């Protein structure tokens, strides 16, 4: 006859572990309480932080995050050359990370121009309007991310020839009753006629700043006819993530000597924003959650240790039935791991429900980090594993003879 090795299947181990912890359901429930609280705290803390950060960063969406505005101080006399010349724009566009850029001249003097359409165009519409008139370079639609509702934007030819053409912002066209440019409608600004060659479509993002309700002229024409003067603003659309860099470089490219006078408006860095929020929220609660987990682990260890002593007779019996020391150790380890795992699952569920509830009450969109939610049960099991090590070792060390002597 050969002497084999004692063996135990994984399913038997799990069955025995589950039977062990379900024998005293109330005690098992209380045992896992610390783990549940710890995991819940962690999931809520991380979940609320992620949700809040997303909420704040969400305001600066991908479009807004690529917008840089350079504000140029206006001089008392618009006839003088400003700190930024129209010809500086190509230097800016050459910068790495700049998608499109446009310079805009919008002096205070032209903010309230009297604008009317050709009376013959639509006799019924009220045609006298107070609208801003601005001079721009050709790249404006690209910068605004706007397409043309109808017609086209003026090009370099129009600019070079100082053509008396105009493009209406979407809002301005509506006010003026211009629907189509097929018949070459004219607008009169302070009595001067311009042919409307296009209407701008809707503007997305934050660069609009009233442009869609303005009359847009080639800057050359605008300067000639209405003394719009040098650029007052430069609008820049950057590549994603390039905004902070371009915000630094743009003033120098636009005005190597006068860049100090320029003011730059750039979106806050979303990463910094998110990190900052998480920093504020997390610190204390993460510590709290971890402390709860440690307390939970101590709880499991304590109760398992008591259980081991209570079940001395059972340990002796199992050894008599052929359980090796390691089988006894595995069983108590499996029991504490299952307790920790269930605690982790309960904690994660409670945490997720809480995060959703908090988000709903604040009208936020809940953000649940999958690794956190999925990792919570693993963390619980780990807590159980660590907590079970010592009791399992104690159980395995028992001499079967001594264990069987106990009357239970």
């Amino acid at each position: 006859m050969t002497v084999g090795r004692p063996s135990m299947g994984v399913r038997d181990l799990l069955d025995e572990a589950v039977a062990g912890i379900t024998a005293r359901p109330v005690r098992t429930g209380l045992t896992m309480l610390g783990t549940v609280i710890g995991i819940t705290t962690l999931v809520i803390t991380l979940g609320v932080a992620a949700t809040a950060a997303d909420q704040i960063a969400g305001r600066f969406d991908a479009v807004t995050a690529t917008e840089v505005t350079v504000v140029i101080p206006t001089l008392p006399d618009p006839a003088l050359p400003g700190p930024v010349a129209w010809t500086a724009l190509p230097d800016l566009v050459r910068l790495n990370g700049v998608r499109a850029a446009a310079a805009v001249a919008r002096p205070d003097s032209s903010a309230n121009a009297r604008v009317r359409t050709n009376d013959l165009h639509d006799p019924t519409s009220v045609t006298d309007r107070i609208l801003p008139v601005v001079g721009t370079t050709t790249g404006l639609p690209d910068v605004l991310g706007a397409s043309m509702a109808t017609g086209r934007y003026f090009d370099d030819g129009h600019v070079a020839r100082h053509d008396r053409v105009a493009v209406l912002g979407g809002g301005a066209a509506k006010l003026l009753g211009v629907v189509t440019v097929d018949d070459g409608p004219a607008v009169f600004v302070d009595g001067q006629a311009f042919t409307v060659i296009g209407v701008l479509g809707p503007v997305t993002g934050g660069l609009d700043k009233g442009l869609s309700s303005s009359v847009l002229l080639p800057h050359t024409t605008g300067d000639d006819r209405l003394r719009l003067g040098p650029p007052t603003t430069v609008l820049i659309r950057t590549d994603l993530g390039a905004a902070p860099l371009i915000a630094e470089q743009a003033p120098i490219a636009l005005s190597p000597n006068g860049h100090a006078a320029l003011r730059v408006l750039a979106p806050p860095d979303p990463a910094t924003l998110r990190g900052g929020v998480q920093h504020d929220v997390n610190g204390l609660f993460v510590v709290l959650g971890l402390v709860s987990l440690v307390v939970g682990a101590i709880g499991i260890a304590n109760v398992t240790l008591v259980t081991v002593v209570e079940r001395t007779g059972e340990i002796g019996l199992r050894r008599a039935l052929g359980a090796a020391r390691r089988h006894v150790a595995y069983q108590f380890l499996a029991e504490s791991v299952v307790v920790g795992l269930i605690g982790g699952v309960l904690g994660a569920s409670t945490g997720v429900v809480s995060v959703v509830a908090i988000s709903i009450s604040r009208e936020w969109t809940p953000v649940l980090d999958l690794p956190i939610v999925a990792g919570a049960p693993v963390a619980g099991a780990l807590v159980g594993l660590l907590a079970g090590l010592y009791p399992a070792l104690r159980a395995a060390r028992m001499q079967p003879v001594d264990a069987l002597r106990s009357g239970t």
Partner: protein
Amino acid sequence: MTVIHLTGVGRTFPADPPVHALRDVDLRVEPGDYLSVVGASGSGKSTLLNTLGLLDRPDSGSYLLDGVETTTLDDRGRTSLRGSRIGFVFQAFHLLPHRSTVDNVALAEVYRKTDRAHRAQRAEAALARVGLAHRAAFDPGKLSGGERQRVAIARALVGEPALLLCDEPTGNLDRANTGAVLDLFDELGEQGVTLVVITHDEEVSARAARRVRIDDGRLSEELR
């Protein structure tokens, strides 16, 4: 093949003075033997049972179980041999609470390589053998003492061990229940089960076919 073959087995516990719990014990038990071990309290009965059950290792001598020399085996080998060859019956029953009777009996197979599918069936068969088929779903806490001990015997019978080792099996039972358990031993003896029953109760030992007496660690067979 001889089930138990002890030659010159000794077991001394370190104390001041040292306790010689077993001294130069020789014993042969053949298949189908029904042997009782009697002796006063502290005479060494439990030490003998622990030795026979591979729960304790003798300091000297040789112990062959089913022809296998056990004194040279390591812990693992003895555990495996114990699980597969020996069925234990204890005075305290050692049934697990919160587990059904049939679960308690099936526990005997958890540490053996057997198919799980028919485990419950075999446990029920063992319960039937001790006359408790109708108690399979019971909580052991609801059984009488005699019934509990019969459940423990059923657990020990699962897997047809070479040897059934019983330590004071009737120690916690009243007259009537003792009688039922002894009747069961008689039946098992007739079926060819090898039985070693340790007891301090002369009446219990009188039912066994062979009787050995242990006195201060020395074993002597009483011929009848």
